């Protein structure tokens, strides 16, 4: 039994208040109150205690690219970043598109110190043609179905998969992009891309992709989550759809904290999918999170080795690691006055867990004791070589950040911190 005293409890469903918390076994047993007999006391020193982050859309290199990230290294990075549940992506080699591959990764994931849940591919080989065995995959523990960044151009096949998924109550995760329009793009339309001579895509490609997917949701009644909304042009349609359909939306932390100009002198660690957007779009996304139009903030952790990034910008790999920097980067939104701490943890923990049907993400009696203790104001200079991840491709290298994770518990067990 653990009893936290002097902790600023962050309740995503309520607010923040200085109190105490008791955990017994792997669940939270009391909020407030005195130290129960026999409990070990942890003085939180007035720091924040929040439900652990549920990071939705993490790429782990198993199977196929274990040199980039393993379940073990991803788990360590997550624990150090306050992430207690990883929702892993199926864009592995091979893709997680059969119950057998799902079983394999489920077994391998036991090496991680944090919880790992898996998304499965929506179509075989993620090629958008034939649906996977959605029923078997659900039975084997898939929490959602997605082809990740492969956008199907076979709308009929997608409609069938969504219709079938609806009958099983499966959640579909889409990537909003018109693939013809965005083909070959490494940046977003605008002065920056044009001056630097980079092939670029209009923000409208995201809106067109979203409009199609929302049309299919209306047609099939599927449960749908759009992985990343990154441009203001997408917001009106999203807001309308959320009023009547079973739709939620996410955004990456990088699109909330960085803009297209951060690429600067062709810095490939800033190459993302979708590419970084204008400052106007970034601010609109921050506002959309504050307003609840966007539900989930995630890292979209994408490990890439040095060689795949040490190339001319157009040819370089896309994506950044983020498990360990998600919280300090997200705290910029709190320090900037855009979000309260409890609003932030709605987007980081509560909303993703609820949408995926997981019991995590709550600061309540009976909830799993997945907790992160952090000092939101502690400053540090990020050194990418000190990250736990096997890959070090972070855009925040050398950046001043505020917010240090002091300790992390998963199911009542401490997995990080002294």
């Amino acid at each position: 039994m653990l009893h936290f005293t002097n902790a600023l409890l962050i309740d995503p469903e309520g607010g923040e208040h200085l109190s105490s918390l008791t955990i017994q076994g792997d669940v939270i047993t009391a909020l407030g109150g005195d130290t129960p007999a026999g409990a070990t006391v942890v003085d939180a020193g007035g720091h924040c205690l929040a439900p652990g982050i549920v990071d939705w859309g993490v790429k782990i290199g198993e199977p196929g690219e274990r040199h980039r990230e393993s379940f073990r290294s991803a788990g360590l990075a997550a624990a150090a970043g306050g992430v207690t549940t990883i929702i892993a992506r199926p864009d592995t080699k091979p893709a997680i598109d059969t119950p057998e591959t799902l079983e394999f990764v489920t077994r391998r994931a036991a090496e991680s110190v944090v919880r790992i849940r898996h998304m499965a591919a929506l179509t075989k080989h993620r090629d958008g043609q034939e649906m996977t065995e959605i029923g078997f995959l659900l039975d084997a523990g898939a929490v959602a179905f997605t082809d990740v960044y492969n956008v199907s151009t076979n709308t009929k096949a997608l409609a069938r998969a969504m219709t079938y998924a609806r009958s099983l109550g499966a959640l579909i995760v889409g990537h909003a992009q018109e693939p013809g329009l965005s083909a070959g793009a490494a940046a977003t339309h605008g002065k920056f891309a044009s001056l630097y001579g980079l092939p670029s895509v209009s923000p409208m490609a995201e809106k067109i992709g979203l409009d199609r997917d929302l049309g299919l949701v209306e047609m099939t009644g599927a449960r749908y989550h759009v992985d990343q909304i990154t441009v203001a042009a997408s917001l009106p349609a999203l807001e309308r759809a959320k009023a009547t359909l079973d739709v939620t939306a996410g955004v990456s932390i990088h699109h909330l904290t960085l803009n297209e100009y951060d690429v600067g002198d062709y810095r490939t660690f800033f190459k993302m999918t979708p590419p970084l957007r204008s400052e106007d779009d970034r601010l609109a996304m921050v506002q959309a999170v504050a307003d609840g139009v966007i539900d989930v903030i995630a890292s979209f952790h994408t490990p890439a080795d040095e060689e795949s990034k040490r190339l001319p910008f157009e040819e370089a790999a896309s994506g950044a690691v983020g498990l360990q920097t998600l919280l300090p980067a997200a705290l910029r939104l709190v320090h900037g006055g855009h979000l309260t701490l409890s609003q932030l943890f709605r987007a980081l923990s509560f909303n993703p867990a609820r949408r995926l049907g997981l019991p995590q993400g709550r600061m309540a009696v009976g909830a799993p004791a997945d907790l992160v203790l952090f000092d939101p104001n502690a400053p540090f200079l990020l050194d990418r070589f000190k990250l736990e991840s096997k890959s070090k491709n972070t855009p925040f290298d050398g950046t001043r950040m505020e917010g240090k994770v002091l300790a992390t518990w998963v199911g009542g067990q401490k997995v990080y911190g002294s």
Partner: protein
Amino acid sequence: MTFRARHLLGIDHLAPAEITTVLDLADRYVDLNRRTVKSADVLAGMTQINMFFENSTRTQASFELAGKRLGADVMNMSVAQSSVKKGETLIDTALTLNAMRPDLLVVRHGSSGAVNLLASKVNCAVLNAGDGQHEHPTQALLDALTIRRAKGRLQRLTIAICGDIAHSRVARSNLILLGKMENRLRLIAPPTLMPPGVKDFGCELYDNMAEGLKGADVVMMLRLQKERMDGGFIPSEREYYHRFGLDAEKLSHAAPDAIVMHPGPMNRGVEIDGELADDINRSVIQEQVEMGVAVRMACMDLLARNLRAERGRAALGAMA
């Protein structure tokens, strides 16, 4: 004299005073190049490597001649037939060459930013001879020298750039340079060949030659590349020529003493009328080629001076 740059990667990094320094020195090299004995020795003992990842005849010849006239040992590497084909990365190629201790590295590459990447890994001076759709700084400098010699100044001119602006590194570098020197810039192109975000460039935009050329002092035509004709950017070659090809009629809207420029190689009958291109009273296209050698000599001379000074300081530091 002001010229601080260590590499010449783009016009974007140059201050107006540095641009003027290059042009002033280039003027002197034009005189040298017109003599029978054209040799100088400012690069004597130095090694220049021309590394062209994209095929080029004109630019490579111009850089080679410029280096040889200044006394450098010049080596041409046709990278198209080298180890790059065997899977060696750009950075490995650069490090290998760097180990041979060249002093000047002239690079052309098909990807925007590739020359910047390479420059960050070597200790010699790097000259960008064109990277993707990013910059082609020596072309902009030679265009500036041509304009300055023809018009007697490089300020307060109305300059129209016409054609495939979206895919042109020549247009990017020229836009930046001519903007820095405080000229009035007009871009004329079909909207499919205008770069996205162009409205933020501070230029006047036209999709009609007659309007765009009105009163222009300088008409700069761009090459329309074959792949653009096939790529669905324009309906056909003949419609493009009809609407955007420069001929005497369209040029009549420009100032009576307007000069016509083209970075070459020209598609006669696609973006420019053949006779007009050869009209020595209007076209300065041959002068551009001549200025190219002089400007490249000036750039390499200035970079070599900075390189010597830097190495001198390093040697002094090592002694102290």
